[in-house]
């Protein structure tokens, strides 16, 4: 098993629910091929540097996972078939230095995933102080996606 990072850009024309559904389907492709998802971090809807298939924007989603190297070709084949994907980038983290960086990014992603969850679950009184201090930039993008899904 080797550490990989999959960046996926989903079509912006879909509704928020459809985007979440397709992201889930993408994650399922990885798990069904023997991959193990370690962390995910939605980067949210953002402007593309150049139009892809006449789309100016795209929903970025990053999946950190450990996958058997032989399964990568199959996963990429499935990604290529998926029409809801504009683009995907798979990156291998192999050397010691890269793995250290990978673990750092995974922890960051996990923290970012926990932060909005904290805000939702405990009492509303605690929330404002925590949000201002702990969660800076990622906060703005992440809850927008989760709230949209909830609605």
């Amino acid at each position, binding site marked *: 098993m080797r550490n990989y990072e999959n*960046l996926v*850009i989903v079509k912006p024309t879909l509704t928020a629910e459809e985007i979440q559904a397709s992201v889930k389907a993408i994650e399922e492709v990885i798990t069904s091929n023997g991959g193990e998802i370690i962390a995910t971090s939605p*980067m949210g809807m*953002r*402007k*593309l*540097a*150049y139009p*892809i298939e006449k789309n100016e924007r*795209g929903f970025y989603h*990053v999946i950190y996972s450990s996958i058997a190297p032989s399964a990568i070709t199959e996963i990429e084949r499935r990604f290529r078939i998926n029409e809801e994907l*504009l*683009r995907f*980038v798979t*990156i291998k983290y192999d050397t010691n*230095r*890269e793995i*250290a*960086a990978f673990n750092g*990014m995974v922890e960051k992603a996990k923290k970012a995933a926990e932060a909005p969850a904290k805000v939702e679950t405990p009492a509303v009184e605690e929330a404002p102080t925590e949000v201002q201090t702990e969660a800076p*930039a990622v906060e703005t993008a992440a809850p927008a996606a989760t709230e949209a899904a909830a609605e």
Partner: protein
Amino acid sequence: MAEKRKYKKRYCKYCEAKVDFMDYKDAGALRFSLSERYKIMPRRLTGNCKRHQDMISIVIKRARAAALVPYTVTRKQVVVAPFENLK
């Protein structure tokens, strides 16, 4: 005889910061080694060392594939503020 250098030869910024790994998703950090037309800046102008230049060129190419950094910029787009989509 020798032509005067237009740019001062500088130390490697990344060595100074002891950068071991660059993340292609952090497009703002790549800006230093990109020209205003988003070409990769040569080492003689930025002062990057060979090791970090190799790293940054790989990372920039990844970011281009992920549509975080443009491949080319037309004349019209050059005027627009770069990385305006970033906060």
